[in-house]
């Protein structure tokens, strides 16, 4: 049976929807055990991921490909206004989002099996991921913003899924109110753009972007759109909600928020802004407001550049000051968004490659660290960084895995985080002009971030725990845990963490396949994409 004729190009999306419905159906039938619903969610994500990887041209999985060559990276005929278009960069992002949902679903299966709300959690997880997949193929502003809304609404509910925990409810409420406001800003911006361009189609906007006659209207429109999407992407100065929400949400949800859904905002910024930014080559053009037409490219570029530098600096500085593990990681997550924004600002294909690679790296590192935090918190370790004293020696494997993720976040060579930062910053240097300063800012910030990551390593491996500070819940009969002890963490979570640690090193030692694929996708995206 030919899969493409059966399900068409939307097979991954259909799979996720089917998974969601199955989980809710099982819920109605009274089957709520976390192992079952979790397995459905993880399975659906993994299967969809395989399809996406096959579509990206991974030869051994070619038989799974559901998109034919004529459906990806197709040049759009002038005048055509498609609602969606498949680009290989979009597929890369589908892979990133599915990886996040798979890892979170897998790790969450280790939560207490009688936990209330498991079907809601896993169902909403798949639903949010479905929204993310739709974002990656959008080529129309309305389609794009509606897909973002699917993600947003699902994640508001995800934060509150326990229904009992006051802190989570508080976080969800905050998340919801600010999210709703930001959505209105996005739509308002889109409506202004519609007024200026007469269309909401991204291809059509790209075709006329530099030569439209309502400069202030266009700038205001993009301004509101940036504001709305910047909330989703946690860019400074729209970031302050993020830390409270990341801190208050159940940690597995936080892992999904930082690893997955935050990147929706960034990818949406990719889609919306690469058009006009690319339209005017860096360094070209006259005064931004001359002659009735607006040379919006450079102005938007500089605006995003300022946001990028602000985001990484503020995120890093505040991360330095945190005493709680989760808040420190939340701020570091904000600063990571700044690095990724650099790639959008520069807009060349190497820069886009770097930014995408950075997000690819981030989905492992950030999801990974929060999954570890969730597991360790479940063992009874307190929220402070100092509560982690001696963890590295008591649970060596966990300590090493967490350490690898932190080293990768800090950008130490032979980890994935180094490769992505190297590609990103070198693209900034290559692009020359003021972009070099973005690389300098990025490097200084990386150096700064090493400090707070190294501090965690020091606490974990070199500080002695105070007597009876470290709970021995995982340790049966008070003996030392064995090297392979998954007890306490749960085997599913331990597997997810191990997968992440291996990926962080494996892709760092041998980045070429991923780097090549993303580099290809980025080149196509710049020439074809909306």
């Amino acid at each position, binding site marked *: 049976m030919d899969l493409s004729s059966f399900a068409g190009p939307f097979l991954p999306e259909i799979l996720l929807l089917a998974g969601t419905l199955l989980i809710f159906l099982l819920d109605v039938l009274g089957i709520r055990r976390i192992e079952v619903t979790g397995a459905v969610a993880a399975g659906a994500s993994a299967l969809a991921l395989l399809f996406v990887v096959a579509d990206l041209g991974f030869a051994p999985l070619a038989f799974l490909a559901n998109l034919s060559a004529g459906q990806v990276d197709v040049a759009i005929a002038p005048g055509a206004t498609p609602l969606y278009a498949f680009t290989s960069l979009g597929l890369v992002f589908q892979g990133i989002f599915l990886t996040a949902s798979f890892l979170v679903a897998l790790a969450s299966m280790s939560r207490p099996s009688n936990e209330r709300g498991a079907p809601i959690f896993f169902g909403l997880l798949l639903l949010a991921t479905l929204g993310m997949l739709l974002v990656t193929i959008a080529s129309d502003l309305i389609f794009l913003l509606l897909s973002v809304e699917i993600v947003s609404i699902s994640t508001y509910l995800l934060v509150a899924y326990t229904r009992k925990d006051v802190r989570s409810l508080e976080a969800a409420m905050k998340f919801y109110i600010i999210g709703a406001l930001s959505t209105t800003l996005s739509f308002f911006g889109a409506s202004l753009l519609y007024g200026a361009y007469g269309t909401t189609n991204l291809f059509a906007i790209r075709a006329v972007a530099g030569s439209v006659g309502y400069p202030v209207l266009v700038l205001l429109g993009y301004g509101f759109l*940036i504001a709305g999407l910047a909330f989703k992407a946690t860019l400074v*100065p729209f970031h302050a*909600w993020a830390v409270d929400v990341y801190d208050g949400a159940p940690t597995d949800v936080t892992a999904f928020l930082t690893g997955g859904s935050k990147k929706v905002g960034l990818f949406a910024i990719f889609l919306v802004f690469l058009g006009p930014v690319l339209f005017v080559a860096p360094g070209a053009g006259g005064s931004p407001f001359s002659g009735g037409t607006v040379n919006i490219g450079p*102005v938007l570029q500089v605006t995003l550049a*300022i946001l990028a530098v602000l985001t990484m600096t503020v995120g890093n*500085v505040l991360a330095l000051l945190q005493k709680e593990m989760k808040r420190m990681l939340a701020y570091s997550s904000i600063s990571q968004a700044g690095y990724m924004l650099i790639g959008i600002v520069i807009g060349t294909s190497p820069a886009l490659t770097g930014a995408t690679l950075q997000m690819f790296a981030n989905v492992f590192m950030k999801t990974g660290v929060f999954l570890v935090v969730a597991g360790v918190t479940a063992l009874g370790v307190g929220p402070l960084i100092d509560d982690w004293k001696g963890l590295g020696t008591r649970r060596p494997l966990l300590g090493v895995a967490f350490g690898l993720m932190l080293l990768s976040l800090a950008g130490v060579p032979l980890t994935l985080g180094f490769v992505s930062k190297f*590609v990103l910053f070198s693209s900034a240097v290559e692009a020359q002009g003021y972009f070099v300063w973005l690389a300098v800012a990025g490097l200084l910030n990386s150096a700064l971030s090493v400090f707070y990551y190294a501090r965690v390593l020091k606490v974990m491996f070199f500080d002695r725990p105070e007597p009876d500070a470290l709970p021995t819940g995982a340790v049966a009969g008070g003996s030392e845990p064995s090297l392979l002890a998954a007890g306490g963490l749960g085997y599913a979570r331990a597997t997810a963490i191990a997968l992440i640690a291996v990926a962080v090193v494996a892709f760092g030692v041998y980045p070429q396949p991923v780097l090549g694929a993303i580099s290809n996708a980025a080149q196509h995206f710049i020439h074809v994409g909306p």
Partner: protein
Amino acid sequence: MRRLEWGGWVSVAFSGAAMVVGVLIGVGEMVNPGTYTDVRYTWLHLAPAPGPFPNGFSLVVGTLVDPISALMLIVVTVVGFLVMLYSIGYMHQDRGLPRYYAELSLFLTAMSGLVLADNLLEFFVFWELVGVCSYFLIGFYYEKPSAASAAKEAFIVTRVGDIMFLLGIFLYFYNFALAGPAGSGGWAANGFLFVNGNQPYLLGHGLGGNSTLLTVAGIMILGGAAGKSAQFPLHVWLPDAMEGPTTVSALIHAATMVAAGVYLLAVASLFLGFTSTDQLAIVGIGGFTAFFAATMAVVHPDIKRVIAYSTISQLGYMVMAVGAGFAMVGLFHLFTHAFFKALLFLAAGSVIHAVGTQDLFKMGGLRKTMRLTAIAFAVGGLALAGIPPFAGFWSKDDILSAVYSQLGSHPAYWPFFLLAFAAVFLTAYYIFRAWFLAFSGDHPRDPSLGHAHEGPWTMQVPLVLLSALACGAGLLIFVPGFQSLLLSGAGATGIPPVYGTTDLLISAASVALGVSGIALAWVLWGNGRVYALPETSAAQPVRRLLLKRYYFKIGYDWIGAKGVYTIARAADFFDRFVIDGTVHGFERAFALVSNRLRRIQSGVVSDYAAYVVAGLIALFVILLIVAPYVVSRLGGG
């Protein structure tokens, strides 16, 4: 066998296997150059983009076996295995044995990687790795304050060189990346500073680019080599590095790691090329160090430190040869020196193992109880003194002839040549002074050392094998293939050493100097004599100057204590008041915002609205005022 020693035997087994493979590969390549092809693996490839690299840019990891790396590979694996075996007998404390063997094995790995690296960046990675292993092993007895501080000293002083080396790489890269090979339109995607014998990359394209930059780059490379090979003025760390176990001194601080600096210079001279200013600087540093270090060895009472100064001095010879354009001749001396210097250290280790002191003036008469060690030390000493037919004669003589052949065209080499020549006499004198003090006479001067005895077989076998190598390694020069290799190593700049009458004269003169050095040592110290310089002698200040190591260490300590500490204080002040001030400013500003946001229980939705509006205002200030201003300042685009 004690359980603690299992790790030792594992290391012996693996380094033995490495030696078999290393020797097979090395000999195969030297007999038949080009047997092994370069294996390369692209670690990171950046897609082509406008800018300095229109063909893209690759970071490459690869292994390369060419004749010079083959020579080094043999040295590293053979000496590595013998030292590992010797360690079984020598290292017998209970604590830290696994650490010792792990670090020594890591060192051997890194050193082999350095030798086999096929580009300068990879070279640098392994360069740093051997450096850190050296730090660990010098500080092996870290409970001893002197060992801990020696380790730090070695690390910091070589770090000065390492930074220079890195800057040198950057300068070469900058220079060639901007200039590019003529007519090529930029570098090929994989053209990053390869050191490939079959493809002298940069030389092949001519020394294009800015010659001042090239000269500076060459000086930087020299700085890196001087740090690692303990050349003047970065020589201070090596004598103190003797705080480590003697096995470590033999392997790392005599035979292999310290030779890495010479190897770097050789590689750079063969594949990057030096300007004539660089060459003069290298010859100058090398020739001066050869003499300078030898003078300090003359008075030292510590057996290991005498040999350490001798190492610095011999490395000076090698550096000088490379600088004069004879990279292979320098490497030949490196090759023979590795064996006889490792032999001297292991023999000294055998003595220290037996008598428990390093003070030459407490020893004496040890040849009676330690016959094998006495013979081994003598063989090493004769090789070092350059007495034919021992190994050192052939290579040191080659260096002197090679430099002599350049004197016609480079008169500025003259003083350094003479210094190096004079050092031959000092070398023979100080090493036999040590031998006579330790082994001749009737009995130890310190009576408590009477019960000395030879070590176990694991210590004796390496001594015997290294003695054989110290006798025979120089005969390599008679292998026809190797001779042509020596000549080809002369590269584009040199005239190959010709074995004519002039060279015979030089040989005769240097042997005469060596013999007279030994004779002087016998007169002053032979047969249990102890020569005491009269208190009123005019030479006393010189002796003090030498014992104080020309006050270099004190000077550096002063710079470290006063200069660096002042800078550190200033930096600390800056950190505390400027940086922390900024950070706390941030903290307060954001705490204000987030505190307002945190009042969720109040349910005051207008707070959120206010927050959103604040963000929006900030954004529009940037978008409508700041960004257009920046764009106009950027020159209209």
